[in-house]
C-alpha cells in the first residue's frame, strides 16, 4: 500500500451532508473487475449532465457547471472537505478507489460512515474527523481564498491551514502505523498464523459444527 506521511494540496468543498457511496461512484461502474480507472466517474451523477456508462470516454460528456469539481478554481484538488456522515451506504471499496484515482489523498469531515472509513485506510486515503465548528471554519476559508491549500501531517496528526493554524485529529494507532509505513495488512496478519491455528484448534473442540460444513 502507498504510504501517507505528509501531504499539501488544494481543497475542494463539497457542502452537503450524508454523501453516500452511490453518489461517490454509481452502480454501473461497479461492474468493472479492476481496482483502477474509477476517477473519471467519481461523483458521476453530480458531475455530468448525462447518464454515464462503463468504459465510456468521459472527455466529451456535458459537465454540470454548478458542481464543485468542475469549477476551475478547484482543479487539481487533492483534499476533499465534506459534511457529516460522509460515505454512508454500501460497502463498495470502489468509493475510495474512485476518490484515490481522481487524485484525492484525504477527506476531512465531521463524521464518516464506518465501512467507508475503514476502506479508506486500506487504500492510502486518509479520512480526517474534525469537529463541526472546525469544518465550518474551513468551509468559510476555502470559499474566500482561491487556491486554498491545507497541509496534512499524519506523523504529528495535525491539519495546518495557510495561516499556520493547526487542527489536531485523532487516528487509530494501528492504522496510522500502517499508513506511515505503507504496510500490507495481510502480510501482517499472516505473521500471526500460529495464533490463528491455535484458535482454530480450540474452537474446533467448542463448536465443531462451524468447520468442514460448506461443501458440495
Amino acid at each position: 500500500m502507498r504510504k501517507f506521511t505528509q501531504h499539501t494540496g488544494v481543497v475542494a468543498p463539497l457542502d452537503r451532508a450524508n454523501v453516500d457511496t452511490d453518489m461517490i461512484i454509481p452502480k454501473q461502474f461497479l461492474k468493472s473487475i479492476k481496482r483502477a480507472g474509477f476517477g473519471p466517474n467519481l461523483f458521476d451523477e453530480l458531475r455530468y449532465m448525462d447518464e454515464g456508462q462503463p468504459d465510456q470516454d468521459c472527455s466529451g460528456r456535458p459537465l454540470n457547471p454548478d458542481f464543485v469539481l468542475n469549477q476551475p478554481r478547484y482543479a487539481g484538488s487533492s483534499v476533499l472537505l465534506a459534511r457529516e456522515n460522509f460515505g454512508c451506504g454500501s460497502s463498495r471499496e470502489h468509493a475510495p478507489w474512485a476518490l484515490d484515482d481522481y487524485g484525492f489523498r484525504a477527506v476531512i469531515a465531521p463524521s464518516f460512515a464506518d465501512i467507508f472509513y475503514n476502506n479508506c485506510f486500506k487504500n492510502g486515503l486518509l479520512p480526517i474527523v474534525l469537529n463541526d465548528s472546525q469544518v465550518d471554519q474551513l468551509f468559510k476559508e476555502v470559499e474566500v481564498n482561491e487556491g486554498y491549500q491545507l497541509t496534512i501531517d499524519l506523523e504529528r496528526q495535525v491539519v495546518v491551514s495557510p495561516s499556520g493554524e493547526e487542527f489536531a485529529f485523532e487516528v487509530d494507532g494501528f492504522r496510522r502505523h500502517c499508513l506511515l509505513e505503507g504496510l500490507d495488512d495481510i502480510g501482517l496478519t499472516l505473521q500471526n498464523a500460529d495464533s490463528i491455528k491455535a484458535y482454530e484448534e480450540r474452537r474446533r473442540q467448542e463448536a465443531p459444527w462451524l468447520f468442514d460444513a460448506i461443501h458440495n
Partner: protein
Amino acid sequence: MAGKTLYDKLWDAHLVRQNEDGSALIYIDRQILHEVTSPQAFEGLRLAGRKPWRIDANLATPDHNVPTTARAGGVDQIVDPVSRIQVKTLDSNCDDFGIVEFKMNDLRQGIVHVVGPEQGMTLPGSTVVCGDSHTSTHGAFGALAHGIGTSEVEHVLATQCLIAKKMKNMLVRVDGQLGAGVTAKDVVLHIIGVIGTAGGTGCAMEFGGSAIQSLSVEGRMTICNMSIEAGARVGMVAVDDKTIEYFRGRPFSPKGEQWDRAVEAWKDLVSDADAEFDHVVEIRAEDIKPQVTWGTSPEMVLPVDANVPNPEAEADAVKADGIRRALKYMGLSADQKITDIQLDRVFIGSCTNSRIEDLRAAAEVVKGRKVAATLKQALVVPGSGLVKEQAEKEGLDKIFIEAGLEWREPGCSMCLAMNPDKLGQGEHCASTSNRNFEGRQGFGGRTHLVSPAMAAAAAVAGHFVDVRELMNQ
C-alpha cells in the same frame, strides 16, 4: 462486574489476538461472496501468490448483475457484456479455488443475504462477513455479521481473520404490540427516522423488547438488514426458540449429536440481564404506523398519513438545505400529502423484503385486485430460487400475475439496478428495498421505501395509501 451483551459474547468467542494498540484479530467463520466485490480480492490473492486459508468457510452466488427474466440461455445470454464478464469471473474464480458456488441457474441461487441463512450457512454464534453492507441481516440469528470492503474480502480469504476494533454496544428496544398492517419494515424505518442515518455509527446495534421478540425470524432479518441505514454496520437479535427452530434440517446446519450440542451453546446467545449498553433507545410499538420515505435518505421517512416536510420550518440550516435538495430531486412540493404521490413503478424484492413471508404479505393485499392502470410496471422478485419455488407451491405467483404484477427470477434486481431492471428518469417507485439515494434505482429515479404490504397497496391504488384501509375492505 456487569454482565455481557450479546455482542460482547460474540466478540470474546472470536478473539484470536488482542493487540496493545487497541486493534484485535477476530476469527471469521463464514464468508459469502458475490460477483461485484470479489473479483479484485481474488486477483489480489493471485498476485501475491496466496491461497485461501479455508475453502469450507466460503459460499458464493451471483446476485447483483443477474437478469430476472428467463435464463435458459445461461450466463452467455446476459445481454450487458460488462455484467456478463463479472458473473463469469465469479464462476471461474470459484472453480479455480474450489469454492462452493450456486451458479446463476442453480435452484439455490439468490440474494446472498437470503441464501446464507436459508442454507444454514449462517448459524447462531458465528461471525459472517460479505463484501456487502447488508450483511448485517445475518445478525437476526444471534450472529456477528457485517459488511466489509474488497480489501477485507481478500484479507478474510487469505487469513480467515479481520483486523478489527471493538465497537460500542447499543440497544434499540421496541416494546409493546405492533398494530395490524404494521410490519418489521415499518419498525426499522421508524427507528431510522428517530435516530437518523448516523444514529448507530460506531456501534453494534442489538434490537430487543417485546415487539422484536414477537416478530418472526424473517421480520428480524428485515430489521437487522437496515441497521446499516441507521449507521450501524452490525445489527443483531438474541437467539430464542424461533431462531433455533429455523435452522433445524437446513443443508449446512449441524446434524445429530452436533445439533444437540449446538443448540445448548446457542441458548446462551442473549445479552445478560445486567449487561450494560453504551446507548439505549426506547421505542413504543404503538407509536409506529406504516412508513413511507419521501426524500433521498432513509431518515427522510414519515407515516403514510403525514405531509411532506417544509424546509422553512427547519431551524438547522444544513438540514433545511438537505430537505430543499431532496424535494427538488424527488419532484415533490413542501407540505403535500404522502398519499398524493403518484407512482410509476412498484418493486417488491431485495435482501430487505424478498423472503416468503414478504411475498405472502404482498399477495394477500393484491389478491382479487388489479394493479392500477397508471403504473408502468410492478415487479415481484423473489430472494432465491427456493423462495420462488415455495411461493409457486403456494400459488402466490398466480395471484401476482392475475393482479397484473410480473413474476421474476431471483436476484437483487431493481434495488440497485445493476441488471436491466431500473427506473427511468423522474419516475417514482414504491420499493421494498433499503436505499432511496439519488440514482440508486436508475439515473434520476425516485425511490420511496415501504413494506411489502404497503408496496402492494400502492400498486393497486397507483399512489400511496394506508394499507390498513385496504385490509378493512
